[in-house]
């Protein structure tokens, strides 16, 4: 059988959602991936899969049928008093929407990987708003690009070339030569090395740096101390001048802001900075969302429930309060009595304290691949790979919805099908309500 090239494939790895990927398919299998970064290429090429549904008995996994795992999962979820459905980021919106239906049905908590990633950005937006734009605006207009607490060279490898730095745009015909790039970080990252300027800041001092920039912008440089968070005042003044005098500026915010001291207050502060810069020039902010559809999970949950993550349906309506209804708080407080991990890997990305409780409660994993969560799971349900074996909607880091493509066929059930079957069975168990 001849090799077939599928063009304009959408990469289901990071929030860049590059949609120019070429995938070579031979005999129904992917033989090569072109134009993607190493992260995307590895994702699309795939790895060893979980072979069959499994149930843990006496500490060992036993391969069973889909019927068996769906029955067992439905029973666990229908009985639980405070079940948690976590993950949802590496998954198309169609399945996320089904997940919300399940959460409502069983009075569960539903939370996404944003909880340990850009959740703080979202809470910051709830305080101050989101002055942003799509990435094409950066490509066509931006002459000042600031990467703050993010390292796209490793986490979003094509970001600079496709959207923000070397790319040529309508009003930036010379690409890189028409823009200035700042990196603000606690270490000299690979991105810092390719920037025009690297500003090193001490860990945990972003809030203070934003306050200093805003104070300088407001004309009160006189009260700002000589250094703030390890950054010299002259440098801060220089940064404010660069921001005020550009034609179109953007700050890309990363987990350097959400994973550190002050968390969402860092975001509130930088959002206010961007807001205030608009009195002088055009300025925007875009969070560097990690998983390819974590932004979509925030969107689909918001239109369905009113809130973007960390939602508690135990009272029949949605209650939202990060810090209370977020996964790690729930696990560390030992509140949760059953958990489903779908399209997210808490085993690898939650602190040990949370994993200890996950090990104690019934844990259902839905995922194409084995990972640390599998090591803690009681029930494992393998599924098709969304964006490679299933098509559906994903939202880029800037809110642009793109339909991912199905490139090859699969024998595995899709996440949506598994959720639908669990939901149907749960409804039967709960008496057809």
């Amino acid at each position, binding site marked *: 059988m001849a090799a077939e090239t599928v063009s304009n494939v959408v990469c289901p790895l990071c929030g860049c959602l590059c949609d120019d990927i070429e995938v070579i398919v031979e005999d129904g299998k992917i033989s090569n991936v072109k134009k993607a970064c190493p992260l995307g290429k590895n994702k699309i090429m795939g790895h060893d899969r979980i072979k069959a549904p499994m149930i843990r008995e006496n500490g060992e996994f036993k391969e069973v049928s889909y019927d068996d795992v769906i029955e067992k999962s439905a029973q666990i979820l229908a009985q639980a008093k405070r079940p948690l459905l976590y993950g949802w980021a590496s998954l198309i919106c169609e399945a996320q929407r089904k997940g919300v239906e399940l959460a409502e049905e069983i009075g569960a908590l539903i939370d996404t990987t944003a909880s*340990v990633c850009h959740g703080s950005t979202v809470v910051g937006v709830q305080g101050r708003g989101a002055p942003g734009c799509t990435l094409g605006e950066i490509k066509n207009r931006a002459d000042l690009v600031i990467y703050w607490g993010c390292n796209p060279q490793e986490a979003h490898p094509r970001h600079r070339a496709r959207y923000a730095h070397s790319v040529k745009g309508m009003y930036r015909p010379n690409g890189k030569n028409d823009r200035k790039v700042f990196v603000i970080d606690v270490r000299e990252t690979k991105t810092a090395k390719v920037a025009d300027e690297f500003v090193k800041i001490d*860990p945990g001092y972003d809030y203070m740096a934003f306050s200093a920039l805003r104070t300088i912008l407001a004309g009160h440089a006189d009260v700002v101390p000589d250094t703030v968070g390890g950054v010299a005042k002259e440098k801060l003044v220089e940064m404010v001048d660069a921001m005020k005098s550009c034609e179109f500026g953007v700050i890309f915010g990363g987990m350097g802001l959400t*994973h550190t001291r002050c968390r969402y207050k860092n975001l509130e502060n930088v959002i206010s900075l961007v807001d205030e810069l608009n009195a002088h020039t055009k300025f925007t902010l875009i969070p560097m969302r990690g998983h390819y559809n974590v932004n979509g999970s925030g969107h689909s949950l918001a239109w369905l429930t009113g809130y973007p993550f960390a939602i508690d349906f135990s009272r029949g309506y949605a209650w939202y309060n990060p810090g209370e209804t*977020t996964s790690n708080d729930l696990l*560390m407080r030992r509140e949760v009595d059953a958990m489903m991990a779908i399209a997210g890997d808490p085993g690898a990305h939650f602190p040990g304290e949370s994993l*200890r409780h996950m090990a104690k409660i019934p844990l259902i994993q839905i995922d194409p691949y084995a990972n640390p969560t599998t090591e803690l799971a009681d029930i494992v349900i393998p599924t098709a790979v969304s964006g490679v074996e299933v098509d559906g909607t994903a939202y880029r880091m800037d809110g642009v919805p793109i339909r991912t493509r199905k490139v090859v066929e699969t024998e595995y059930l899709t996440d949506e099908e598994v959720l639908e079957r669990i939901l149907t069975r749960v409804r039967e168990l709960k008496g057809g309500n």
Partner: protein
Amino acid sequence: MKEVILITGRTLKQGSNLENKMSDAYFDAAARCEMNENLLTRIGASVGDAVKVSTRFGEVVVNAEKDDGLPDGHIFIPMGPWANAIVDPDTGGVGTPTFKGVPANIEKTDGAVLSVKDLIARYREG
């Protein structure tokens, strides 16, 4: 033993093996601790040596790696189960554990770097 500040985060290799976490490639990508040459020297370690990193929240053994982009006194462990064995679980009021800026101690060790399976098995035992 040296007092340092722990940062965790994404790397190209860790990200390239996100769906391949039970592999050797992921182990190589994530069971490591990066620091600059100066710090390596001060703890008497070379690249590839096992180092023990401990915080108030636990300890973990990982392989030492060099990255001169790190300022003195800072170490970097890629996000993943090894880093998460020692990060500060406090969620700062909004649900996100403290993955960056955690005070830690680092020293050279003869201990072994645990595999993913063995690392996670510790939580099953309570």
